């Protein structure tokens, strides 16, 4: 048994499960003699916990398909992480639990499972492992995966949305095309883009009655989850507040001058993945900025890019692109903030 534990292939998985279930036996050495109870596991599990309203609503709306999507996301995501833990002789980082939970939630529920698997493997590999693992990645791995399949399979990602509650009476059906009254429809964002009147009320959008990516539709749950994370200090309040605030102000002003191009602020916020992005993806501590002022600038940048892409580009949704873009700007913003805060030191003059 002990020999098996030390096996190079088994070791990371064994340690991950062992620590996960039993906790640490290590004691402090050097530095502070006592440590507080918060650890990375708790931090990551709380993010997953905060996503639970969205997950439960996905299962309610899309039945077993939602379950399989989450299952395969975890299966392939954790396997990729495990392989890299073996290669690099490092431990499995708990951040993978969040990545694999967010990833299926930002996908359309009709997506074929093989495509989902390709995306998560790509996302974890190119979004995280090539940079050296969690803590060193520049981009949010879940979004890198989604970006990859958006570009590789544009047809699936733009037109294959179905109305929620499609699985009522067909809970175990995973092929929505086989359900007679399944309506493939455009998301509310497409209506806004085309300049058509919105058919959903704000309340319907909040409660998840409109089609969209699997986890983004139940917006009330996302808001509650996001507030939970901010109140518990798991995530920073600066980014979501400045992000959503900027979208409100910018689209509010823009809507007055260009009502045809820029849609009303209420719909900007309650459509698409904005709330999911603002509360759960933009706040990813690794890929966002760490200086306090930098966080605010980061949020403002996200808001500006989101409104610009939604209003003036060929894409209907701008949240994913703006987060990936601002991820790339993050180090630059931090470095600028550090230069402003810390001035070069002045050497003492030699005493005569």
């Amino acid at each position, binding site marked *: 048994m002990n020999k098996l534990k030390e096996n190079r292939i088994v070791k990371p998985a064994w340690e991950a499960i062992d*620590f996960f*279930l*039993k*906790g*640490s*036996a*290590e*004691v*402090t*050495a*050097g*530095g*502070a*003699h*006592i*440590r*507080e*109870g*918060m*650890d*990375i*596991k*708790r*931090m990551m*599990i*709380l993010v997953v916990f905060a996503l639970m309203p969205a997950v439960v609503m996905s299962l309610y709306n899309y039945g077993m398909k939602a379950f399989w999507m989450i299952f395969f996301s975890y299966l392939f995501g954790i396997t990729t992480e495990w392989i890299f833990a073996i290669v690099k002789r490092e*431990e499995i*980082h*708990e*951040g993978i639990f969040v990545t694999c939970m967010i990833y299926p939630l930002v996908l359309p529920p009709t997506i074929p499972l093989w495509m989902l698997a390709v995306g998560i493997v790509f996302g974890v590999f190119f979004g995280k492992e090539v940079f050296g*693992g*969690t*803590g*060193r990645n520049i981009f949010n791995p879940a979004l890198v995966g989604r970006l990859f399949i958006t570009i590789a399979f544009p047809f699936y990602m733009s037109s294959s949305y179905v109305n929620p509650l499609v699985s009522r009476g067909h809970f175990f059906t995973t092929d929505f095309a086989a359900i007679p009254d399944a309506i493939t429809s455009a998301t509310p964002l497409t209506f806004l883009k085309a300049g058509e009147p919105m058919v959903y009320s704000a309340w319907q959008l909040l409660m998840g009655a409109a089609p969209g990516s699997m986890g983004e539709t139940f917006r009330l749950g996302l808001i509650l989850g996001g507030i939970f994370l901010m*109140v*518990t*200090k*798991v995530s*920073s309040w600066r980014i979501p507040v400045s992000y959503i605030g900027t979208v409100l102000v910018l689209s509010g002003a823009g809507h007055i001058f260009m009502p045809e191009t820029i849609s009303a602020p209420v719909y900007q916020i309650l459509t698409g993945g904005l709330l999911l992005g603002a509360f759960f993806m933009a706040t990813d*501590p*690794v890929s966002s900025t*760490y*200086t*306090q002022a930098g966080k605010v600038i980061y949020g403002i940048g996200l808001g500006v890019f989101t409104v610009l892409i939604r209003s003036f580009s060929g894409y209907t949704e701008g949240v994913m692109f703006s987060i990936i873009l601002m991820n790339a700007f993050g180090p630059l913003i931090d470095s600028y903030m*550090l230069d402003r805060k*810390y*001035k*070069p*030191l*002045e*050497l*003492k003059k030699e005493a005569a």
Partner: protein
Amino acid sequence: MKVNHKTFTGGYKFNNFEGQPSGDVVLYKPVKDMIGSVIEPGRGITAADVLDALNLTGFSGPDTALTETVGKIAPYDVRDIVISTVETEPYSLPMKSMVNQATKGQFISGLRNIQESYPRAKMTLVIGEDQIDLVQLLSAEVKRLSRVSLVTIASKYPANRKELTVPVVLGKKYPVGYGPAHLGMLWLGIKDVFQVAKSVTEKKVVDSTVLALSGPGWKKNLVLDVPVGTKVKDIAKSYMAEGEIRLVKNSILSGGLLTDEDTVTFDTDVIIAVPEDRRRQVLFFLRGGKNADSFTNTFLSKLLPKSEKTAGTNLQGERRACVSCTYCQSVCPVGLIPHLLHKHADKNIINKRLAEYNIFDCIECGLCDYVCPSKIEVVSNIKLAKEELEKAEISHKEYVIPECDIVAQTSREVAAGE
């Protein structure tokens, strides 16, 4: 009497850790073969002599590692005397046991003695905002003394450090690494005031010091009056509980380990005993944690303010790579970005840039270590980086400290001239 209140950003409020000592000071039975410095009262002994003997009026070089006293500040040059009674550590010397109705008179006479010795000094008594009893007890008496003011400060760790108290209370920058005498001031603890009173007013030999036995590792949490030079081993023999226990001097966040050979000195305020906690807690990350202390609001203990927090040396998680959660950044009392410094030190990028990131402002309070969810030894890394920088002759000695005038030079000349 109007009491000024001061607060500061960063820091962290610890409360209600298990094993807090209380009650009156108990005399510890002396053991034979004591060694240690003894202050004999003589004719005309002054507070300055006592504080001198306690090594509180000297200034060393601008290097903290240099413990040897280079010079003494002349009493006439002392402009400020700051006396801190702030309890912000998880375990600190309980002020209720030290200053109460019975010992108030002794404390005030100590203050008076110090005042007489330092004719130009303004005295500031710093009290934590939580210690309302102490403010009520002392304000009327302090009012009668001239040149003494009472200031309350936010009860957040590390408000008990001179590097933090001086800028917050006196509004002048404290050059980290220099002694208080360099600023023309004295930094005193409450015990020093009592030592002065004991020697000058009561004409008794100062050969013992008060210390608290804190933490869950003692059979009983007492406040003891212990002869200086007593072996820690002997105290442990009489009072320590069974099991594998770690003994720490003065601060559980930044204090050093005590071994059997160590003896009690005048600067021993607290001996903390915490059990070496190697128990694994099954599914710890899912537990409510009604006795767990945390900077975040993810434990039930935040909703139960009266709950007693457990203290053990368990790491409470596994070591992971830094995710830049910024917890360390928001608790840092001196406004550094500890995780940035740690990352530089970890990758061995130790150069002038670190000095520009104000690494020498670090007071090694240990808060970043305490709050880190990735369980990284941040402070140890920063210490290493500082040592490397010193070796490369990039040190705070070489740089101008803005908004700070170091006056010790003149006093040193005075001292040398005498």
